[in-house]
């Protein structure tokens, strides 16, 4: 796209424009997402508590509430405690927000519609989402308030410990598909909804629920919102924040909720593939030209965003349904239940893939198969240089093909 534009404009400007456009599109996700989800949260909580939710702000279903919230937060005075560390206090919300935003870089929104097509997309998203905890710690420390510090410590402890089962759950789809590339993982689940990895075997089905629990905890949603000390009526690490900086924390929270739901959608629920292969039946695939592929991707985008919003709504629903846990209960759920279950699921999925190599599972090991074939045939050449030539040369050719395909592009 930048190259095409560079024919008409000076090259630096073309690159800058395309870069800004892509950044803007990505930024829309946390911005619009946060506004929309805050409104959804109010409406859902109101339904659950048997009241109406936003009613005074006008508009159908009170949608003007979005604008009212935004205006209020932007125009609020930017306060800072007297003893706070000024630089760190101002920096902390942006650290949180950047971490949550950077996770969206590697998240594909449809087949190939991804800001940065990373080979290790899953890994990158997990690594970057883990950085959000720095914003929390910095905010808690720099606020010069003991409640903030308590909140930050609890939250950091919780986030760091829940990364362990979360990572183990994510490994299961990676193991089955043999990929860490999110675009490929999504494309492997094409076809009927039975191809989705959550229905691949019983272990992945359970893994999904463990994943979702850990994801809820690692983005600090209730029932795991331990940062807030309710008995003292303070709001955890962002007690001292007001106005736009507080908004940045909130956008980070909703942004990472969207990111983990998107990861769940791609890893377990087929990503941008709908329950029926409508896109393929209509022929809206890249083989039939870029325009049709674009339309197909648009449908895929709709699917994907629908799945993400469903995930976030589910988190909101859980928040207003279940009671909060104590800190020891939170740690117990993580260490005594989630981690061992995730480990057992990992083992089970491994055995399932080995013992029942069919469907998607077969694709996980071509490299290993062919490498073993290639090396197993090689001693034949060493022992019997006359007889084993055909066999060995075939093995060599295979190995060369295998490694060339890996080394290609250099």
């Amino acid at each position, binding site marked *: 796209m930048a190259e095409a534009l560079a024919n008409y404009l*000076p*090259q*630096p400007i073309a*690159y800058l424009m395309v870069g800004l456009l892509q950044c803007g599109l990505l930024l829309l996700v946390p911005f619009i997402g946060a506004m929309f989800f805050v409104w959804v949260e109010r409406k859902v909580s109101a339904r659950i508590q048997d009241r109406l939710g936003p009613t005074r702000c006008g508009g159908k279903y009170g949608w003007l509430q979005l604008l009212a919230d935004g205006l209020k937060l932007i125009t609020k005075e930017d306060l800072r405690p007297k003893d706070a*560390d000024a*630089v*760190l206090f101002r*920096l902390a919300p942006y650290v949180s927000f950047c971490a949550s935003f950077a996770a969206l870089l590697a998240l594909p929104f449809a087949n*190939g519609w991804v800001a940065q*097509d*990373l*080979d*290790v997309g899953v*890994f990158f998203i*997990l*690594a*970057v989402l*883990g*950085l959000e*905890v*720095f914003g929390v*710690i*910095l905010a808690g*420390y720099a606020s010069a308030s003991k409640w903030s*510090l308590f909140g930050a*410590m609890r939250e*950091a402890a919780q986030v*760091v410990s829940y*990364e362990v089962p979360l990572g183990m759950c994510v490994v299961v789809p990676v193991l089955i598909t*043999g990929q860490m*590339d999110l*675009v490929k993982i999504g494309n492997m689940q094409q076809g009927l909804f039975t191809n989705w990895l959550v229905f691949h075997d019983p272990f992945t089905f359970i893994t999904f629920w463990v994943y979702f629990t850990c994801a809820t905890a690692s983005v600090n949603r209730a029932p795991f919102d331990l940062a807030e000390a309710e008995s003292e009526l303070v709001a955890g690490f962002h007690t001292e924040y007001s106005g736009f900086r507080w908004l940045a924390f909130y956008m980070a929270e909703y942004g990472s909720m969207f990111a983990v739901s998107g990861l769940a959608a791609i890893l377990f629920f087929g990503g941008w593939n709908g329950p029926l292969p409508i896109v393929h039946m209509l022929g809206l695939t890249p083989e039939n030209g870029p325009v049709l592929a674009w339309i197909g991707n648009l449908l895929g985008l709709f699917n994907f965003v629908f799945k993400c919003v469903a995930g976030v709504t589910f988190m909101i629903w859980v928040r207003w349904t279940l009671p909060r846990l104590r800190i020891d209960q939170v740690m117990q759920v993580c260490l005594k239940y989630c981690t061992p279950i995730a480990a057992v699921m990992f083992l089970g999925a491994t055995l399932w893939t080995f013992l029942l190599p069919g469907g998607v599972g*077969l*694709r996980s090991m*071509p*490299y*290993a*198969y*062919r*490498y073993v074939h290639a*090396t197993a045939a*090689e*001693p034949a*050449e*060493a022992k019997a240089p006359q007889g084993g030539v055909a066999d060995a040369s075939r093995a*060599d*050719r*295979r*190995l*060369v*093909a*295998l*490694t*060339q*395909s*890996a*080394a*290609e*592009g*250099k």
Partner: protein
Amino acid sequence: MDAINWHSLFFLLFAVVACGSAVAVVVATNIVRMALCLIVSLGATSGLFFLAGADFVGSMQLMIYVGGTLVLLIFGVMLTAQGPFISMRTGGGDWIVAVMLSGCLAALLVPAAFSVVAWRNQPTVAVDAHADQHAADERGATAKIHQVSEVGTHESANDAAAVSFEGDQIGEGRPRTSTHIGLGLLGARVDRLQPGSADLKPGMAGYLLPFELVSVHLLVVLVGAAYLARTKRRAKPQREA
């Protein structure tokens, strides 16, 4: 208008950020700001890795050093830094030792860096990217067809293998870095490939065994640490009336 060398531009950006915040770690007096500068420095280093096409190493840097080690560090600092320790000033003697040590290291590293022939007098990025890209695409396509046909004839049962061969490239013809690392662990030399190469000893497991040994070792260390750190139960529970 000349094409801007974006690679060099971003390399300079990340390098300046990494070095600048590394200096800031040394200069800063507040211990938490030091930690923050360290985060920025390590993050910029991972940016350099991404720029070099090493996605896996870059993510690893983010996850292990920035996300793991530094969180522990900050926890440690915040829990222990009180009163006199919260701002640290370096004494004159420390400065002398530090300058001597870092001077020795620089004296080692700088000549080593300039002795690499390939880094001198060579443009880093092919300006004629279009032609190169096109050629690479063609090469990749023919190679793929070749592989797929071969695999198809020899392993008709394993047709899924062909599928995976198709998808060995990600966008823009970049190689898949994690595949390299995986093959390297299995003992394949992805950088040097001739049929029947002596580097490929039959039945050799590559670096898989050392890798597994290190993992088990780390696990044992973890379990040991948990055992040592657990709350000790008293041998004789004392009862108070």
